[in-house]
């Protein structure tokens, strides 16, 4: 998929020598993230007894399944050179609508979930259409979308709606045996979405169009790619992922609440950046979202295991990691950007 990029970098590498060759490779930051994750797990295992069990690692996935799905959608948007700030509010709105449809309107779960997913996709497509048609900055449009979705939550109810629908309760309590431990259905869905997303990004025409638009929108248009269609689809996909993240969050929390998912958009952006995707677009891997999310989760778990550090350290460490990764990307990878 990034044949052009890696070929260009390889040509530059011949002149620059070994280190530049390695640090300039498209997979370099992704590898740094994986190494970082392994190091964190290793340190945790060495310092805290019981840290290196399979279940602790699986719990990372279980607790962050919703974030993974949201980050995958965000990954596509960022690869296309945009940004979507509305995903956290969209997640909250989906939990709210799901809860309301189940508890007040007594819809069957399948219909409620389908309705919520459709809503997310339409919301995203609407934002994408405005961004494309009026040539507005994605940042400001999705900011307005963020206000809109959060506001709609409070229109439904300002209080938390708890879900006691039997299917949802059953799903939230199910433990699927997996490699000696267990995973939640939500985590399995998130993994399935990841596989689907990797296929979409690297093996389909749509994926190639996303990379092309993110690399250079004008060139993509001149090549005859339908830039508008790609953009609308990318934001629709992000909205869909945010809505699915909301459904997973509803499984996880068994409630719908307008305050759910505050700051999720930033966690998702952080995960995508830490996963090695350039925020300027066109460069990186969708699978990086997994390592990014796991790193964020590992920070939280380490701090929880330590017990003496206050949880505020999470935000600071995430900020510091963001800083390091952005600077590394800037200095090593995207010198021409």
């Amino acid at each position, binding site marked *: 998929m990034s044949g052009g990029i890696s070929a260009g970098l390889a040509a530059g590498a011949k002149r620059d020598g070994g280190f530049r060759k390695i640090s300039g490779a498209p997979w370099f930051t992704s590898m740094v993230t994986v190494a970082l994750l392994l190091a964190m797990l290793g340190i945790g295992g060495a310092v805290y007894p019981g840290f290196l069990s399979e279940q602790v690692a699986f719990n990372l996935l279980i607790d962050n399944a919703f974030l993974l799905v949201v980050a995958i959608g965000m990954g596509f948007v960022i690869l296309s050179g945009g*940004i979507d700030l509305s995903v956290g509010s969209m997640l909250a709105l989906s939990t709210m609508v799901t809860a309301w449809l189940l508890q007040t309107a007594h819809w069957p779960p399948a219909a409620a979930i389908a309705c919520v997913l459709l809503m997310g996709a339409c919301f995203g497509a609407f934002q994408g259409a*405005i961004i494309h*048609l*009026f*040539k*507005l*900055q994605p*940042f*400001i*449009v999705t*900011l*307005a*979308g*963020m*206000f*809109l979705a*959060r*506001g*709609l939550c*409070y*229109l439904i109810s*300002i209080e938390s709606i708890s879900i006691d629908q039997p299917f949802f309760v059953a799903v939230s309590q199910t433990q699927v045996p997996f490699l000696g431990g267990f995973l939640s259905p939500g985590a399995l869905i998130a993994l399935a979405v990841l596989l689907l997303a990797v296929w979409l990004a690297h093996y389909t025409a749509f994926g190639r169009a996303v990379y092309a638009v993110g690399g250079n929108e004008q060139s993509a248009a001149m090549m005859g790619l339908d830039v508008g269609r790609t953009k609308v689809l990318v934001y629709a996909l992000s909205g869909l992922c945010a809505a699915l993240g909301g459904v997973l969050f509803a499984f996880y929390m068994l409630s719908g609440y307008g305050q759910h998912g505050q700051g999720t958009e*930033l966690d998702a*952006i*952080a995960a995508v*950046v830490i996963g090695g995707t350039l*925020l*300027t677009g066109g460069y990186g891997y969708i699978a990086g979202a997994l390592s990014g999310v796991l790193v964020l989760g590992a920070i939280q778990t380490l701090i929880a295991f330590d017990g003496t550090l*206050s*949880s*505020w*350290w*999470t*935000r*600071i460490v*995430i*900020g*510091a990691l*963001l*800083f390091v990764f*952005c*600077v590394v990307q*800037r*200095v090593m990878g995207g010198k021409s950007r």
Partner: protein
Amino acid sequence: MNAPVKTPASVAASEPARTPLGALLLQHPLLRPAAALIVLLVLDALLVPGFLRLDVKDGHLYGALVDILNRAAPLMLAALGMTLVIATRGIDISVGAVVALSGTVAAMLVGGATPMLPMPLALGAALGVALLCGLWNGVLVAGIKLQPIVATLILMVAGRGLAQLLTDGQIVTVYYQPFFFMGSGYLFGLPFAVYLVAAVFAVTMLLMKKTALGLFIQSVGINPVAARLAGLRTATLLVFAYVFCSFCAGLAGLLVTSNIKSADANNAGLLLELDAILAVTLGGTSLAGGRFSLVGSMIGALIIQTLTYTIYSLGVPPEVNMVVKSIVVFVVCISQSSEFKQLIARAKRRPA
């Protein structure tokens, strides 16, 4: 370029001399924001009984208008700083975190029965922290050349964590009386906060209009490369814009903390950056950089506060506030886009 060629720009520039005053007013960039504010105020005057009444109690002026002005003060400060950053084609989303940080530092230093530091020193320390935040943002944007949204995202995530770490996640209550003057004191009948905003606004206006700084900032926003080639120290200008923005945010943090008599690292200034961006956009400043209007941003902040007041006083549930705000952003942004203007122009031409 120095030949006397009539470029379209020079034609446009010489045109106002011939157009009547009315048309000139209609073309003024502040027309739309000012009209929006007036419409909102007229709406309030019609719907809310006693909206325009001003009472004098204990030598202080009271009334809805004063209230709106007072409550808009932190947002106006944040919008002032944001205007300069947006004028350089940047964005600063760490404003809320800086508000929380500076408020926390001030509250911790003067909080408690006996202040740790004399108040001027404490305020200075809080503003110093804000300046450092701005310097950090500025260096990331101008020095390391990160995208502004990413550079300030780092502080946005970490800043609030830092503030919470300082206070152990607790709300710091302030008991020191003189500190409350900033947020709720009165001077010559008007809230002190209004004077503070007016002073910062006046200084900024002077800097922008009477020195070349405004022009420099505009040129960086229009084309950073050309500005640098023309001999401007673009990096210094960028750092200045971010430092100024954080300084304004720090002042806003002091106002907020002093007004609610406590510092809540978790909620102080939450989403303030978004309101500030909204105010700047409403005021007619283009998010693409270059063209900016400080007066417009002030009007934008007042529009947001008046809108909030209207929603509350009409008995509409406050939850609607966010929906209304978002619709306003959509409408304003779309109406400002050149694509929309072309659509309108085409629609006008068709019937003729």
